[in-house]
Protein backbone atom coordinates (compact mmCIF):
# COMPACT_ATOMS: atom_id res chain seq x y z
CA UNK A 1 0.00 0.00 0.00
CA UNK A 2 1.04 3.57 -0.58
CA UNK A 3 0.54 6.66 1.53
CA UNK A 4 1.15 10.37 1.09
CA UNK A 5 2.00 13.08 3.61
CA UNK A 6 1.64 16.72 2.72
CA UNK A 7 3.72 18.57 5.23
CA UNK A 8 1.89 21.89 5.18
CA UNK A 9 -1.85 22.24 5.56
CA UNK A 10 -1.91 26.00 4.85
CA UNK A 11 0.52 28.13 2.88
CA UNK A 12 -0.10 31.89 2.71
CA UNK A 13 1.99 33.66 0.09
CA UNK A 14 2.17 37.11 -1.46
CA UNK A 15 1.52 37.65 -5.15
CA UNK A 16 4.64 37.26 -7.32
CA UNK A 17 6.50 35.42 -4.55
CA UNK A 18 7.68 31.82 -4.99
CA UNK A 19 5.88 28.93 -3.38
CA UNK A 20 6.85 25.36 -2.51
CA UNK A 21 4.42 22.67 -1.40
CA UNK A 22 5.97 19.64 0.21
CA UNK A 23 4.91 16.05 -0.39
CA UNK A 24 6.45 12.85 0.92
CA UNK A 25 5.26 9.38 0.04
CA UNK A 26 5.67 5.90 1.38
CA UNK A 27 5.60 2.78 -0.79
CA UNK A 28 7.25 -0.62 -1.00
CA UNK A 29 6.90 -0.66 -4.79
CA UNK A 30 7.59 1.71 -7.67
CA UNK A 31 5.12 4.56 -7.92
CA UNK A 32 3.62 7.16 -10.14
CA UNK A 33 3.17 10.59 -8.56
CA UNK A 34 0.67 13.32 -9.25
CA UNK A 35 -0.28 16.81 -8.17
CA UNK A 36 -3.90 17.85 -8.51
CA UNK A 37 -5.38 21.32 -7.98
CA UNK A 38 -8.86 22.09 -6.73
CA UNK A 39 -10.15 25.62 -7.23
CA UNK A 40 -12.97 26.77 -4.94
CA UNK A 41 -16.19 24.84 -5.49
CA UNK A 42 -14.75 22.80 -8.33
CA UNK A 43 -13.51 19.28 -8.97
CA UNK A 44 -9.87 18.27 -9.16
CA UNK A 45 -7.66 18.97 -12.17
CA UNK A 46 -4.37 17.30 -12.94
CA UNK A 47 -1.51 19.75 -12.55
CA UNK A 48 1.39 17.47 -13.40
CA UNK A 49 2.59 13.89 -13.12
CA UNK A 50 5.76 11.88 -12.75
CA UNK A 51 5.77 8.52 -14.51
CA UNK A 52 9.43 7.87 -15.29
CA UNK A 53 12.48 9.54 -16.82
CA UNK A 54 13.49 13.07 -15.91
CA UNK A 55 12.96 13.79 -12.26
CA UNK A 56 11.93 17.38 -12.95
CA UNK A 57 8.45 17.54 -14.39
CA UNK A 58 6.66 20.60 -15.66
CA UNK A 59 2.94 21.07 -15.51
CA UNK A 60 0.31 23.59 -16.36
CA UNK A 61 0.21 27.20 -15.15
CA UNK A 62 3.97 27.42 -14.57
CA UNK A 63 4.16 24.72 -11.89
CA UNK A 64 6.93 22.15 -11.68
CA UNK A 65 7.80 19.32 -9.33
CA UNK A 66 10.90 17.30 -8.61
CA UNK A 67 10.88 13.60 -7.85
CA UNK A 68 13.52 12.59 -5.31
CA UNK A 69 13.57 8.82 -4.88
CA UNK A 70 16.13 8.76 -2.08
CA UNK A 71 14.08 11.20 -0.01
CA UNK A 72 10.74 9.80 -1.25
CA UNK A 73 9.57 13.31 -2.00
CA UNK A 74 7.70 15.07 -4.79
CA UNK A 75 7.67 18.77 -3.94
CA UNK A 76 5.71 21.24 -6.04
CA UNK A 77 7.08 24.69 -6.87
CA UNK A 78 6.15 27.84 -8.71
CA UNK A 79 8.60 30.74 -9.00
CA UNK A 80 5.97 33.49 -9.02
CA UNK A 81 2.36 33.01 -7.95
CA UNK A 82 -0.76 34.86 -9.00
CA UNK A 83 -3.97 35.56 -7.15
CA UNK A 84 -5.59 32.95 -9.39
CA UNK A 85 -3.34 30.24 -7.89
CA UNK A 86 -5.38 30.39 -4.69
CA UNK A 87 -6.63 26.81 -4.39
CA UNK A 88 -6.17 23.52 -2.61
CA UNK A 89 -3.41 21.27 -3.89
CA UNK A 90 -3.32 17.50 -3.50
CA UNK A 91 -0.40 15.17 -3.90
CA UNK A 92 -1.33 11.62 -4.96
CA UNK A 93 0.44 8.33 -5.57
CA UNK A 94 -0.37 5.07 -7.28
CA UNK A 95 1.71 1.94 -7.74
CA UNK A 96 3.09 1.10 -11.16
CA UNK A 97 1.48 -2.33 -11.10
CA UNK A 98 -2.06 -2.99 -12.25
CA UNK A 99 -3.49 -1.17 -9.28
CA UNK A 100 -5.88 1.53 -10.39
CA UNK A 101 -6.26 3.32 -7.13
CA UNK A 102 -4.87 6.71 -6.18
CA UNK A 103 -3.92 7.54 -2.60
CA UNK A 104 -4.22 11.24 -1.81
CA UNK A 105 -2.57 13.44 0.74
CA UNK A 106 -4.64 15.63 3.04
CA UNK A 107 -4.17 18.68 0.86
CA UNK A 108 -2.43 22.06 1.13
CA UNK A 109 -4.45 25.24 0.93
CA UNK A 110 -2.58 28.01 -0.84
CA UNK A 111 -3.84 31.54 -0.29
CA UNK A 112 -2.26 34.21 -2.46
CA UNK A 113 -2.51 37.79 -1.19
CA UNK A 114 -1.93 40.99 -3.13
Amino acid at each position, binding site marked *: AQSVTQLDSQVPVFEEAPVELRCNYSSSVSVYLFWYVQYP*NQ*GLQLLLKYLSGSTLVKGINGFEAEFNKSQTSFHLRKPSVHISDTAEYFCAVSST*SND*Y*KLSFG*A*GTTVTVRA
Partner: protein
Amino acid sequence: NAGVTQTPKFRVLKTGQSMTLLCAQDMNHEYMYWYRQDPGMGLRLIHYSVGEGTTAKGEVPDGYNVSRLKKQNFLLGLESAAPSQTSVYFCASSSIIRDFSYNEQFFGPGTRLTVL
Protein backbone atom coordinates in the same frame (compact mmCIF):
# COMPACT_ATOMS: atom_id res chain seq x y z
CA ASN B 1 -17.79 16.77 -24.25
CA ALA B 2 -19.27 17.29 -20.81
CA GLY B 3 -16.60 15.09 -19.22
CA VAL B 4 -17.71 13.81 -15.81
CA THR B 5 -21.00 15.12 -14.44
CA GLN B 6 -22.61 14.53 -11.07
CA THR B 7 -26.21 14.81 -9.94
CA PRO B 8 -27.29 16.44 -7.65
CA LYS B 9 -24.88 19.24 -6.73
CA PHE B 10 -26.27 19.67 -3.23
CA ARG B 11 -28.48 17.58 -0.97
CA VAL B 12 -29.64 17.66 2.63
CA LEU B 13 -30.87 14.43 4.19
CA LYS B 14 -32.22 13.46 7.57
CA THR B 15 -30.63 10.58 9.45
CA GLY B 16 -32.00 7.29 8.17
CA GLN B 17 -33.07 8.56 4.75
CA SER B 18 -31.73 7.03 1.59
CA MET B 19 -30.50 8.56 -1.63
CA THR B 20 -28.59 7.84 -4.80
CA LEU B 21 -25.86 9.97 -6.34
CA LEU B 22 -25.44 9.70 -10.09
CA CYS B 23 -22.16 10.00 -11.96
CA ALA B 24 -22.05 10.07 -15.73
CA GLN B 25 -19.08 10.26 -18.11
CA ASP B 26 -19.03 10.68 -21.87
CA MET B 27 -15.38 9.77 -22.47
CA ASN B 28 -16.00 6.02 -22.89
CA HIS B 29 -13.82 5.32 -19.86
CA GLU B 30 -13.73 1.83 -18.44
CA TYR B 31 -12.87 2.76 -14.87
CA MET B 32 -14.97 4.82 -12.53
CA TYR B 33 -14.48 5.81 -8.89
CA TRP B 34 -16.33 7.35 -5.98
CA TYR B 35 -14.40 9.39 -3.41
CA ARG B 36 -15.38 11.36 -0.37
CA GLN B 37 -13.54 14.51 0.67
CA ASP B 38 -13.42 15.57 4.29
CA PRO B 39 -11.45 18.48 5.77
CA GLY B 40 -7.89 17.54 6.61
CA MET B 41 -8.24 14.05 5.15
CA GLY B 42 -7.90 14.52 1.42
CA LEU B 43 -9.89 12.22 -0.84
CA ARG B 44 -10.65 8.68 0.22
CA LEU B 45 -11.82 5.99 -2.18
CA ILE B 46 -15.24 4.54 -1.37
CA HIS B 47 -15.87 2.12 -4.24
CA TYR B 48 -14.63 1.72 -7.76
CA SER B 49 -15.47 -0.14 -10.94
CA VAL B 50 -13.17 -1.53 -13.61
CA GLY B 51 -15.96 -2.16 -16.09
CA GLU B 52 -19.68 -2.44 -16.69
CA GLY B 53 -21.26 -4.82 -14.20
CA THR B 54 -18.24 -4.97 -11.87
CA THR B 55 -17.60 -3.07 -8.65
CA ALA B 56 -15.07 -3.29 -5.82
CA LYS B 57 -14.56 -1.83 -2.37
CA GLY B 58 -12.16 0.97 -1.73
CA GLU B 59 -10.75 2.37 1.48
CA VAL B 60 -14.02 3.43 3.17
CA PRO B 61 -16.90 1.36 1.73
CA ASP B 62 -19.07 0.89 4.82
CA GLY B 63 -22.54 2.41 4.56
CA TYR B 64 -22.40 2.76 0.78
CA ASN B 65 -23.40 0.62 -2.17
CA VAL B 66 -22.68 1.11 -5.86
CA SER B 67 -23.88 -0.13 -9.20
CA ARG B 68 -22.48 0.07 -12.73
CA LEU B 69 -25.26 -1.15 -14.98
CA LYS B 70 -24.13 0.98 -17.90
CA LYS B 71 -20.57 1.81 -18.85
CA GLN B 72 -21.16 5.54 -18.70
CA ASN B 73 -22.92 5.62 -15.32
CA PHE B 74 -21.77 4.86 -11.80
CA LEU B 75 -24.30 5.17 -8.97
CA LEU B 76 -23.51 5.62 -5.30
CA GLY B 77 -26.24 4.73 -2.83
CA LEU B 78 -26.71 5.51 0.83
CA GLU B 79 -29.33 3.14 2.25
CA SER B 80 -29.60 4.76 5.68
CA ALA B 81 -27.76 8.06 5.89
CA ALA B 82 -25.79 8.97 9.01
CA PRO B 83 -24.31 12.33 10.06
CA SER B 84 -20.82 10.79 9.58
CA GLN B 85 -21.60 10.65 5.86
CA THR B 86 -21.77 14.43 5.63
CA SER B 87 -19.09 15.11 3.06
CA VAL B 88 -18.32 16.21 -0.47
CA TYR B 89 -18.51 13.30 -2.89
CA PHE B 90 -16.46 13.20 -6.07
CA CYS B 91 -16.77 10.86 -8.97
CA ALA B 92 -13.87 10.21 -11.33
CA SER B 93 -13.23 8.14 -14.42
CA SER B 94 -10.19 6.92 -16.31
CA SER B 95 -9.36 4.94 -19.40
CA ILE B 96 -8.06 1.38 -19.37
CA ILE B 97 -4.44 0.86 -18.45
CA ARG B 98 -2.33 -0.63 -21.23
CA ASP B 99 1.30 -1.60 -21.01
CA PHE B 100 1.43 -0.39 -17.44
CA SER B 101 0.80 3.15 -18.57
CA TYR B 102 -0.47 5.67 -16.11
CA ASN B 103 -3.98 6.16 -14.95
CA GLU B 104 -5.08 9.78 -15.20
CA GLN B 105 -8.37 10.26 -13.46
CA PHE B 106 -10.84 12.94 -14.55
CA PHE B 107 -13.03 14.33 -11.79
CA GLY B 108 -16.58 15.59 -11.64
CA PRO B 109 -17.55 18.85 -9.88
CA GLY B 110 -18.69 17.13 -6.68
CA THR B 111 -21.88 16.67 -4.65
CA ARG B 112 -22.12 18.36 -1.28
CA LEU B 113 -24.17 16.15 1.07
CA THR B 114 -25.31 17.13 4.54
CA VAL B 115 -26.93 14.60 6.84
CA LEU B 116 -28.79 16.09 9.78
